[in-house]
């Protein structure tokens, strides 16, 4: 299935594991100890990126470019706005497989597999400065 809106909240954290079994990056909200612990348990420390709710720096500094390369696997334990904004940004260029589960009042666990849309390869979808 591509594009997952509106998503269905799922009760079980374990259920999100398969979609991004080998994520390229893991995002965790370091304001929350529970997010730190869970991300650490995923045991891929070199891929972990600490965030504080705002997707802007992550997107403009890295993910915007990474997603143009093809397939990208992302996983996170963050607030909902981080996940939502990342999804909206990604789906401009990519078909998404998204799984999301609510961990507690503040945190959501999610996995996104982003595959560059075939017709994006024409660069028609991209803005002029990308074509320059």
């Amino acid at each position, binding site marked *: 299935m591509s*594009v997952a809106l*509106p998503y269905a909240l799922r009760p079980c954290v374990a259920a999100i594991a398969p979609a991004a079994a080998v994520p390229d990056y893991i995002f965790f909200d370091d304001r929350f100890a529970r997010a730190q612990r869970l991300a650490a348990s995923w045991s891929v420390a070199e891929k972990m990126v600490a965030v504080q709710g*705002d997707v802007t720096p992550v997107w403009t500094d890295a993910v915007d470019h990474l997603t143009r390369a093809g397939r990208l696997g992302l996983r996170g334990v963050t607030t909902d706005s981080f996940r939502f904004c990342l999804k909206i940004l990604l789906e401009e260029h990519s078909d998404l497989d998204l799984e999301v589960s609510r961990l507690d009042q503040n945190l959501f666990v999610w996995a996104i597999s982003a595959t560059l849309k075939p017709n994006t390869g024409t660069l028609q979808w*991209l803005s002029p400065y990308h074509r320059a």
Partner: protein
Amino acid sequence: MAEPLPPGLTAERMAEALERFRKIVGRDWVFAGDKVASYHDPYTISNDASRHKAHAAVAPGSADEVQAIVKVANEYRVPLWTVSRGKNFAYGGAAPVLSGSVVLDLSRMNRILEVNEKFGYALVEPGVSYFDLYKYIQDRGLKLWLDVPDPGWGSVVGNALDHGVGYTPYGDHFGMQCGMEVVLANGEMVRTGMGSMPGNNTWQLFKYGFGPYVDGIFSQSNFGIVTKMGIWLMSEPAGYRPYLITFQREEDIEQVVEAIRPLRLNNILQNAATIRSLVLDAALFTTKSQYYPQAGPIPDSVAKQIMADQEIGMWNFCGALYGPPAITDVLWTATRDAFASIPGVKFYFPEDRKRRPDILIHRADTMKGIPKLTEFGFLNWNGGGGHVGFSPVSPITGQDAIKQWRMVSGRVREHGFDYMGLMAVGFRELHHVTVIVYDQSDPKERQKLDELFRLMVREAAAEGYGEYRTHINYMDTIAGTYGWNNGSLMKMHETIKDALDPNGILSPGKSGIWPRHLRAGRKS
């Protein structure tokens, strides 16, 4: 579940129309079935799942394709719901008012046609986002600043057309537009202002041209499809000095706004500054449960704890000074003096703020036109993610400000929500924008929100306050409050609608304007 059909159109005829659209734009750019989901309102309010659902979407790559699409839409009577980028999520995103509409998604039309540093303007297509235009300017080292709304992913054209606001001296976005290209419902293309004169070179320099000024009828309307627009850009100033002024009591809003009016009218306050409430600012970087893990609005004791922790006030006035230091020093003295008599007032520049993240450090970016998505942080306050904006306009008087604040905050808190509001200072008015954050996964909460919203609209209208913009769910409701002289303004809108779009194919229901064949029974 099959996607809904618009009134009067069979599945077979719609399928034929979509096939015709595919021939115009290519098969990859007509979206149906699962692909339509991304055009749904992610923060739907109604518990009726059939409302505001698109049937399909078509994404043209050029104005020529837009012209061809509207001709087919006329032939089949397919309602087209036009979006520039569809990112206006507090007001419905890309979702249509009328279920069964085909979303006309202009996001592929994303060419930056010209950026003119000498005269300070850009000419862009509707798919150009603030992120796009900002990067274009930065990559070329142009000495120009954007004016951005809070979400940087929105359309420059779409935001101006929807009367969006930003926070530099160019904060009135529609006021800064200059020259449009518009595809009418019959497929004819027009250029407004000086653009209608062949060979003219002031299309983006002089708004009015000759004869009636018509640009306004294409804003918040369904009279045409804007395919190009000029937008004035600010020259990079010789200096920039953002500041934060905090106030300790909610009731201070009366004195604060009284101080602001003369500053604004005399251009001492240069930008579209904002007075932001405690919880709105706190919610950008923290969540409610970190302070108060219970239902209902936070008590005063918790508010005071947040104020102390984050060095913010019950109201936080974020403004900025633009120009050489010799000028901004004088402006700052006048600004500081205007607020100095308010008990408990505190003044900050960025170098005074040590916490990270911090509200002034964040707003300092926004007030110099750097596009961001930071403001989405407030959605996490309750964890549930849904939000809607209630946006009445007020004169810049303390009496009106405190009256509106009491009305809105009282109702919001009665319904169990925290008050998260801001007052954006326009040239002569305040936009009082209250964001109501709710748990979108809870149907009861959505119902409660809907009742609250409608109550606030009624109460505001009874006091003479009207909303300047609204969610697709409330367009008829808000339009109904602009009913002076037996609804003469809406009658005029409908006359224009019938003349320009007799088949009613363009965005039925936008701003409460319905085509003739769909009007019956819809009056609020």
